[in-house]
């Protein structure tokens, strides 16, 4: 046993200071012969749960602690007892949340159960006076150690040796400095010396440490004494549930039962069937047994705060949730099994996810904090670590690389798949060198990439999880340190995985834009027609128009089924399905399957599923698989299928099978998954399953890594999808307006407007007297809202709308200027956007701007604020003012692109009509006639979805639209290598390729990509039609017309 134990160690969970990972620290400590290790990250327990796990794996006893730093004082606090842990959490929370925090007085208040190490003379002297126990003087090798030794001798406090470890190896000091430079926004040469630790603060071995303490050997011995005193036997098995109105468990159960049966009678009618009664009874028993009673009541209380929610996740399998109004899918009707949510063997607490309309979420969170007390509630954190991409960018800045160069190089690195190079080459150095060689990057880039790759994973800061919230019965600061986010919300220091490991039950309050779309559409319908959709009796699932719309895959704008991949799958599923099967299938059930099947690693099973759904023959993997997964044609679709197949094929226990399912979605799962794989292969083989079958099934199980859904979750989603589809089918204008207004859909506004036109709606321009802030849909028209003007201020628009509502429509431009307090730049935008066209009469848009400038000039001369109502616009000699010619058509379009982000009055491909004609392009509506033949098509790139083949080659699925419709295309690796760099959304392309038909859906396999702007140069010299695009009078040549690009990679679909 070693005499010396490292008691002051920072991992990369010390924000922007610690360099080494927990694994690296523990592995090195183990190699050095240590049996105990402390983790003392700066002002936090950010990685405490993971440290306990990793240290245990390496056979080390984990000591939890933190280095508390505040102003000029500092101390290392180590947990001696479980009370000490509570106190440490409270102390750290106070450090972050209390603006009047005073470390010298706070530490003694919470010192019970803590060991305190410090070399802060003022602090130690004061704490000694207050008779603090377990107080030590920290001696760290370096120039100032003799001061600490003197302090120890002077005060009589025992010394203890530490090395204030910030990195494992000596040479990593450079990485620490870079990290500090990133944190302080400076360069290495300007980095203050005191902002960094010393170069010798590494994980030194016992022999190295011993050399520094010949004069105080007791300092080394004390480390062992402290280590043996500290608490190392951590147990976080206990689940911490929220409390509802301080009810006892019996009271809460009575209330839950009453509410459940009341809800059941509303959902199923006054007389409940035996099946429903039995199910409710079983579930209530299980809920009571697992102590979830109060949790359900809390969730029910929260859900009641909004009339429109979507309870999702495994909770949707519960009839109690359904009866309480937490979820809205009938688990009996859709065969959802409660055991997926709660079962006897499940040890980890399941959480309930609730979607609220995105713009109501903050109100709900405020309610929770107010209702359950700010001390009992906190949000879950996200650990924002340095990913390689961010690390390269940040290190680049430290090395003085200009933003433009970073913006130039970063996309090239991403395109080159450079972020995977260190992993692919099994070495940071080799990976960085290979990447820079491949991209032709010279100094200092190889060093930047190398340093960045070494810093990957370091904690930068906390952010607030999008919806995770923890409610505890007493004080949250007992369980975990709490910080205050930039928005002023209390946030725990753990992300969701660690919170769960610590037994904290999480509730997900998420914002959902589609719920807001549904709400806004229903409101608009009520406003326009007087008819209000009754949501309690609304049954879109059995509506023929809605089913037909889904069968046609016309689902753009519909929740979760609008992505190109989903729509393509829907088309393949229905288009070539034999009529007899199609007639009897349940569209809702299939939509539930489709929602689950579209996930990153499952695309190779999609084709097989469609084949089987069409009734085609297939070779059975194993009879047990066929039998277990009969509902999904022998394909693993839902999360619970993993558990079911593990039980059926390999004889896993329910608990183990459920754990396997859970591990698949974890971030740090490599080791556990390896264990499960070995067990699965061994157990299945023992049960006589062939090696090939085991491998096939395990591959299917692996397709659930990343994210995947359980059936209850998909069913909840599918129901919202059906509601969206219903509204799209019956009230298209109101629906599309709501989709655009709530933003955040899969497509850009331009793509939604194109879809609206294809749906037969007329898109109306901006009008000062008719437009509102939002888009408005009515009948067959969709009016653009002021929100689309990118630079228009909301406050100014609300002012003008208020004036319009109060005193009636504006009668003229002059009337507008007289009545509204305006800023000239804002009015200029409105004029260029054509808002005044109906009012202007014979005055052109340039003429209006001229008058605006004249008004402004006169106001400046007279010292008046324009538009204050006192400016006599009539006093200007308007009649004598020039009326210049209107802007040319091309320039108006350019203005639309500048102001709205896209052309409104023409389709951008119309600019290139002549070049398309020249190449005899096939419209998308005709492409199915040319299956197998090489054709050329034009297309405006709407979305791209990067993908990788089994051989890890980059390829892309793209969706384009031409003047006749949307079409999908596939760019396979060979072609992607040639043309991938040219592909970008919102650009016009000529694609040469071969239409291919699969299951009745036609897609283009691309052979050649030409950016239309490039082709036109040669065409303009030959064709007169194209010459108009190069009007010499224009500032910006027409061939430069292009909308801002975005390279968003969506995860779904």
């Amino acid at each position, binding site marked *: 046993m070693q005499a010396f134990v490292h008691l002051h160690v920072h991992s990369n969970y010390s924000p922007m200071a610690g360099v080494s990972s927990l694994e690296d620290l523990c592995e090195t400590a183990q190699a050095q012969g240590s049996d105990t290790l402390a983790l003392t990250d700066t002002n936090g327990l950010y990685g405490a749960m993971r440290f306990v796990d990793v240290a245990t794996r390496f056979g080390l006893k984990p000591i939890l602690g933190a280095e508390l730093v505040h102003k000029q004082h500092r101390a290392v606090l180590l947990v001696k007892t479980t009370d000490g842990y509570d106190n440490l959490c409270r102390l750290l929370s106070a450090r972050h949340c209390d603006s009047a925090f005073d470390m010298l007085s706070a530490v003694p208040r919470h010192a019970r159960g803590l060991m305190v190490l410090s070399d802060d003379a003022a602090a130690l002297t004061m704490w000694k006076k207050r008779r603090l126990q377990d107080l030590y003087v920290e001696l760290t090798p370096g120039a100032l150690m003799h001061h600490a030794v003197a302090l120890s001798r002077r005060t009589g406090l025992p010394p203890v040796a530490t090395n204030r470890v910030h990195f494992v190896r000596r040479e990593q000091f*450079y990485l620490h400095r870079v990290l500090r430079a990133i944190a302080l926004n400076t360069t290495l*040469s300007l980095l203050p010396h005191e902002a960094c630790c010393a170069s010798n603060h590494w994980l030194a071995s016992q022999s190295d440490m011993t050399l520094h303490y010949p004069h105080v050997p007791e300092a080394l011995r004390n480390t062992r004494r402290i280590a043996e005193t500290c608490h190392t036997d951590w147990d976080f098995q206990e689940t911490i549930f929220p409390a509802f109105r301080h009810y006892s468990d019996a009271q809460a159960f009575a209330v839950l039962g009453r509410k459940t049966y009341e809800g059941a009678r509303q959902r199923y009618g006054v007389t409940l069937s035996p099946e429903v009664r039995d199910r409710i009874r079983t579930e209530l028993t299980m809920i009571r047994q697992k102590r979830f009673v109060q949790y359900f009541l809390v969730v029910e209380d929260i859900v009641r705060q909004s009339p429109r929610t979507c309870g999702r996740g495994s909770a949707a399998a519960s009839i109690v949730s359904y009866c309480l109004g937490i979820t809205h899918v009938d688990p009996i009707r859709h065969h959802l099994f409660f055991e997926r949510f709660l079962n006897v063997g499940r040890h980890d607490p399941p959480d309930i996810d609730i979607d609220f309309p995105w713009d109501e979420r903050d109100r709900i969170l405020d309610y929770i904090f107010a209702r359950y007390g700010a001390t009992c509630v906190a949000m879950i954190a996200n650990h924002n670590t340095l990913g390689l991409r961010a690390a390269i960018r940040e290190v680049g800045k430290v*090395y003085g690389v200009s*933003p433009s160069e970073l913006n130039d190089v970063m996309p090239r690195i991403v395109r080159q798949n450079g972020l995977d190079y260190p992993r692919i080459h099994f070495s940071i150095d080799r990976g960085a060198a290979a990447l820079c060689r491949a991209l032709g990057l*010279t100094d200092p880039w190889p060093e930047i990439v190398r340093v960045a790759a070494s810093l990957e994973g370091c904690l930068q800061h906390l952010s607030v999880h999008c919806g995770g919230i923890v409610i505890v019965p007493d004080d949250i600061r007992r369980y975990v340190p709490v910080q205050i986010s930039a928005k002023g919300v209390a946030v725990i220091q753990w992300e969701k995985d660690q919170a769960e490991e610590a037994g904290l039950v999480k509730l997900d309050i998420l914002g959902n834009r589609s719920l807001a779309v549904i709400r806004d559409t229903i409101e608009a319908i009520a406003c326009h027609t007087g008819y209000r959709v009754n949501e309690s009796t609304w049954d879109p699932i059995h509506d023929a128009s809605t089913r037909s719309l889904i069968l046609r895959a016309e689902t753009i704008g519909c929740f979760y089924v609008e992505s190109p991949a989903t729509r393509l799958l829907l088309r393949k599923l229905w288009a070539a399905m034999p009529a007899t099967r199609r007639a009897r299938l349940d569209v809702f059930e299939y939509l539930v399957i489709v929602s689950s099947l579209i996930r990153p690693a499952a695309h190779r099973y999609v084709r097989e599923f469609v084949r089987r759904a069409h009734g085609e023959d297939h070779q059975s993997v194993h009879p047990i698989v066929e039998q277990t997964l009969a509902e999904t044609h022998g394909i693993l679709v839902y999360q619970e299928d993993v558990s079911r197949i593990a039980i059926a094929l390999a004889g896993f226990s329910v608990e183990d099978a459920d754990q396997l399912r859970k591990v698949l979605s974890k971030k740090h799962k490599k080791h556990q998954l390896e264990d499960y794989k070995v067990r699965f292969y061994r157990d299945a083989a023992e049960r006589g399953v062939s090696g090939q079958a085991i491998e096939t099934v395990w591959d299917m199980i692996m397709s659930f890594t990343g994210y995947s859904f359980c059936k209850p979750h998909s069913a909840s989603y599918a129901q919202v999808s059906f509601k969206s589809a219903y509204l799209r089918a019956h009230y298209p204008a109101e629906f599309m307006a709501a989709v655009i207004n709530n933003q955040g859909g899969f497509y850009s506004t331009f793509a939604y407007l194109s879809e609206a036109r294809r749906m037969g709606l007329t898109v109306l321009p901006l009008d000062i007297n008719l437009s509102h802030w939002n888009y408005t849909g009515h009948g067959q028209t969709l009016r653009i809202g002021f929100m689309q003007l990118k630079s228009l201020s909301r406050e100014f628009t609300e002012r003008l709308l208020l004036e319009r509502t109060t005193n009636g429509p504006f009668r003229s431009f002059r009337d507008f200027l007289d009545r509204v307090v305006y800023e000239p730049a804002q009015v200029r935008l409105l004029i260029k956007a054509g808002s005044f066209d109906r009012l202007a009469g014979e005055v052109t848009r340039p*003429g209006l701007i001229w008058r605006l400038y004249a008004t402004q*000039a006169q106001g400046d001369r007279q010292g008046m604020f324009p538009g204050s109502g006192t400016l006599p616009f009539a006093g200007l000699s308007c009649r004598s003012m020039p009326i210049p010619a209107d802007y040319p058509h091309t320039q108006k379009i350019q203005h639309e692109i500048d102001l709205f982000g896209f052309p409104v009055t023409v389709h951008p491909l119309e600019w290139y009509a002549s070049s398309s004609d020249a190449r005899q392009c096939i419209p998308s509506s005709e492409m199915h006639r040319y299956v197998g033949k090489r054709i050329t098509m034009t297309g405006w790139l709407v979305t791209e979805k990067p993908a990788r083949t089994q051989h890890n080659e980059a390829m892309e699925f793209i969706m384009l639209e031409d003047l006749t419709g949307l079409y999908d295309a596939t760019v396979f690796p060979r072609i992607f290598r040639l043309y991938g760099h040219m592909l970008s959304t919102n650009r016009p392309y000529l694609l040469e390729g071969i239409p291919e038909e699969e299951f009745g859906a036609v897609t283009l396999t691309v052979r050649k990509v030409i950016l239309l702007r490039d082709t036109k140069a040669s065409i303009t010299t030959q064709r007169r039609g194209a010459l108009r695009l190069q009007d*010499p009078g224009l*500032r910006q040549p027409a061939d430069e017309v292009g909308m801002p690009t975005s390279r968003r990679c969506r995860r779904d679909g």
Partner: protein
Amino acid sequence: MNRHIVCFTIPTFQVALARLEEASLTTRPVAVALSSNPRSVITEASKEARRDGIVTNMSVAQARRLCPSLHVRSPRPDRIRQANRALLRVVERFTPIWESVQPGHFYLDLTGTTRLFGPACDTAMRMRQEIARQYRLSGMAGIGNSKLVSYMASTLVEPPQLCDIRSGSEEAFLAPLPVDTLPLTAASRKTILMRLDDVNVRTLGEIARIPLADLVPVLGQHATLLHAWARGIDPSRVLPPARQPGVEATLNLEPGELDSNRLPSLLYRLLEYICRELRRQQRQCHELTIRLQYGDNVEVEHSQPVHPGTLWEVDLMPCVSRLFVRCFRRRIRVRTLTVRAGHPLPVAEQLTLFGWDNQASSMASRPACRLALAMDTLRVRFGHGVIGWGKAQPDAGVRSSSRTF
């Protein structure tokens, strides 16, 4: 009296010089950048290169992607200065009033030289031929009654053409020209063009037709000037050659320097050169300016008056340090360092009435100044690099840490 102004330009002057030295570049795409390092930026591009989409301020790496056959050459300041002086020698034979805007670009006032050399057009032609014959540099010229007209005329032709705008036809000549070809200052250009675009005024002819009173609300203080320009009126004079207004030294750092310990040393090195030059010219610096050009082409410049004037390093070094701190505020590599001694005036060596030492000689008697003089002597005898101030040695300081890990 009718003025005859010639605007003479050798387009892409540095490219033309590079082609003189390497005949094989004549028809090939050529660009000038501080170095051929991929991160360097293009400062000049030949017509062939521009045709492939290469523009100034583009990185060499990006330019090479657009035009793989691009030839990149580094600028040679001494060669440029030498060539410009040679051109001026030709120009000076025809008129004493010339203004060099930038190397290879001059305005000449030929007013009153008609009886001596013939019409301005012929003179410009002879000058162009002379330059082409002697130096094999092909230029173009615009001739008009003002700097504006001659400049606008020169933009419409290509070497070796000339464009002569006859007196009285200026307004008609300018009328169809787009407003964005006007030589507006960088500060006002964006606003003026934006406002003209707003009211859909595209040509100089349209500006000329608008009453000035109506133009004022749109263009404000610029209205009068632009209205006059649009009618061919530009009274600005060709400024005669002025004496060198300051002593300047520039250092190019490729691929850039970020070390805040090293950069001041490099600045001191430039200061050594400046001071040596000032002592040689027996002038004193009264204003010191430091200019840093960052890797993203942003330039930051700060000046400080120096009172009393001085020509000694020891006096100017603190000033350099202060200015550097003010300039070096960005976390981007510095690409170019420039030190400039402004308002250099001759050293006033007024003898005193009673024979005591005057101020200048008492200053020079300080040990640091005597040392500087001694160093100057050594440099004259053994070369510039033989000795230097310790502060001006970039690697003399202790580096704060090793870069290896």
